């Protein structure tokens, strides 16, 4: 009996906590997004909030912005992270000494910087009057502030994208590096024997091998940026704002009347990320199962 139920008992504390705190909250939010406020005497389920959202251009503008920002940030971070990881990997392969682990640690520094600070660093760097603009001016690249591109608090979301590209690249490299280090030292030898030069090796072996971990890492970054609040709040513009900021604005508008809409935004956000998660999981599972790599 104990043997049979043991895994469930072991999982109970963690699962219980999450079900209560997380899914309870989610469910609570879901009910309220449907306008279910028993304390206010509202016990009917209505989809007004959702209908309003879907017909409001503000919501769609938010959605588009969020999607764009998340997509670009995760792609940039993915590229930069892969570059980092591959460089580190190649370094380790060719030197064999301990210095590569020091490099590795060094690159994890941005990971330890809180997002708030990361966002602020980007502000200071990329403002039109920021550090880079000052350097550019001193180098004679630009003459007036206005010539420096608008990269912070811009409607496109470059500031947010830059922040995440910077902050999450080390995360991506951290996720794929272990996979790379599982690449057998001898595979380089094997590939050479069969006539592959360094570039062939990277293209045929290194990149395909890190692909699954890479997609997962990129997806995590995507989801994270898709649902992050702090950085878009600091580096975004009032209109359109990203979905989490939009939800926050609705949530704190000072009246309970906007709550269902705020919570509806949340639910839409969550459903979207879960949906994506399921897709990526399915793809990746097949990938791994087929290759017997995990």
């Amino acid at each position, binding site marked *: 009996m104990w043997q049979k139920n043991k895994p469930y008992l072991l999982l109970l504390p963690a699962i219980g906590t999450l079900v209560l705190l997380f899914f309870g909250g989610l469910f609570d939010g879901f009910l309220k997004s449907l306008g279910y406020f028993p304390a206010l005497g509202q016990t009917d389920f209505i989809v007004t909030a959702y209908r309003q959202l879907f017909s409001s251009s503000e919501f769609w503008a938010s959605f588009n912005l969020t999607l764009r920002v998340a997509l670009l940030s995760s792609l940039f971070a993915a590229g930069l992270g892969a570059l980092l990881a591959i460089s580190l990997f190649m370094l380790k392969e060719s030197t064999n000494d301990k210095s590569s682990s020091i490099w590795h640690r060094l690159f994890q520094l941005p990971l330890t910087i809180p997002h708030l600070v990361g966002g602020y660093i980007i502000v200071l760097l990329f403002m*039109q*009057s920021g550090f880079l603009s000052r350097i550019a001016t001193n180098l004679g690249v630009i003459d007036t502030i*206005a010539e420096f591109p608008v990269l912070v608090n811009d409607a496109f979301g470059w500031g947010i994208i830059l922040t995440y590209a910077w902050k999450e690249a080390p995360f991506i490299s951290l996720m794929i590096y272990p996979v790379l280090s599982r690449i057998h030292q001898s595979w380089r030898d094997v590939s050479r024997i069969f006539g592959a030069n360094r570039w062939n090796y990277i293209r045929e072996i290194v990149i395909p091998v890190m692909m699954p971990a890479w997609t997962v890492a990129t997806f995590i970054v995507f989801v994270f940026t898709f649902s992050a609040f702090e950085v878009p709040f600091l580096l975004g*513009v009032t209109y359109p704002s990203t979905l989490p900021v939009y939800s926050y604005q609705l*949530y704190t508008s000072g009246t309970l009347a906007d709550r269902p809409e705020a919570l509806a935004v949340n639910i839409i956000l969550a459903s979207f990320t879960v949906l994506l998660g399921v897709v990526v999981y399915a793809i990746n599972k097949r990938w791994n199962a087929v290759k017997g790599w995990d």
Partner: protein
Amino acid sequence: SQNTDNQTAEETEQLLTSDWQTIADSATGQQVNMYMWGGSDNINRYIDEWVAPRLNQEHNVELNRVPMNDSQDIINQLVDEKFAGKSSGSMDIIWINGENFKAAKDNELLWGSFSGQLPNFNDFIDKDAPEIAYDFGEPVDGLEAPWGKAQFVFVHDESKSPTPPKSMDELAEWVQENPGQFTYPALPDFTGSAFVRHVLYETTGGYEQYQQPAASIPNLETQLEPMWDYLNRIEPYLWRDGETYPESLAKQDQLYASGEIGMTMSYDPALAASEVLKGRFPESTRTFVLDGGTLSNTHFLSIPFNSSAKAGAMVAINEMLSPEAQTAKLSPENWGDLSALDLTLLSLEQQDAMNAVDLGAATLSLTELEEHRLPELSSDYIEIIEKGWLQHVAKE
């Protein structure tokens, strides 16, 4: 603390009627949480290092400043607490005005008519003055006590623009001559919204017509057209071609501080001086007002309905209304916020002390400001203007 939690509703109601000594007595030993915007070291320091120690020493009331990012968050939190039936909250003093006050009042988030109980309110404040009796057109009804006054001023760099514009039309000319040098914070930013209200006053024929509820103006839509026209007219010449507006006044100030734009604005006439003092704004920064006057308003302190230390809050507010506290607050080194007191009600020494405060070269004189004061309009307009701005200006 225990005893405050057990305060009955009756006991707290008594505070609204009993004499000051009783109130002061029951305040003893209380801890008072003051919720306010926390993004200025000056203001924080003024509370933490000037007000709090004095309160502690003289009244044995402990003042604890709680930093917030936005006053709206305060109201929102109270809404939640009210909804959840939380009867003993931790907010004891909140710093609000305008829209927030109206929202709080509409939702019955404020405790009651307490300001009449405060000796300093009774002694030094002209209760009947419109800017004291009304908060953005909303009757105050003693729910909040005035803490300071603000008046809208424009901030410019004298070395770049020696003769600042004196009206909205001149401003438009200036903007066209100096493309990219002017902007205003995106609405619903408070200051940005105030700027738009100046445009409203000047382009639609004065402020008087807006001292009544918005609903009583039949064709408000068309009446506001000139305002949108004006704003759209200057838009192409604004900072970044008007494609976007600074998120907040603070961001705009950063732009000004770094020289990216040549003009900014403030609802705090002494802010520029204080920024110069900190080295953020250039030394040649000056402020100016329009000939037609600029908006002024009052900001208030209030006590939420579920405060657990109402007596302490009253004592603390009373202390903050004292001539000494107000004089200290006026000094740009501390904050530079205009006094809420009526100068004429003060003793001569107190008046001298207040006049002796050096407001800095960037600040206009108190009389200059006094002569160019316009009243705010009621907050239902503000909502209309903010929504309209998004539609007519930002999105286009």
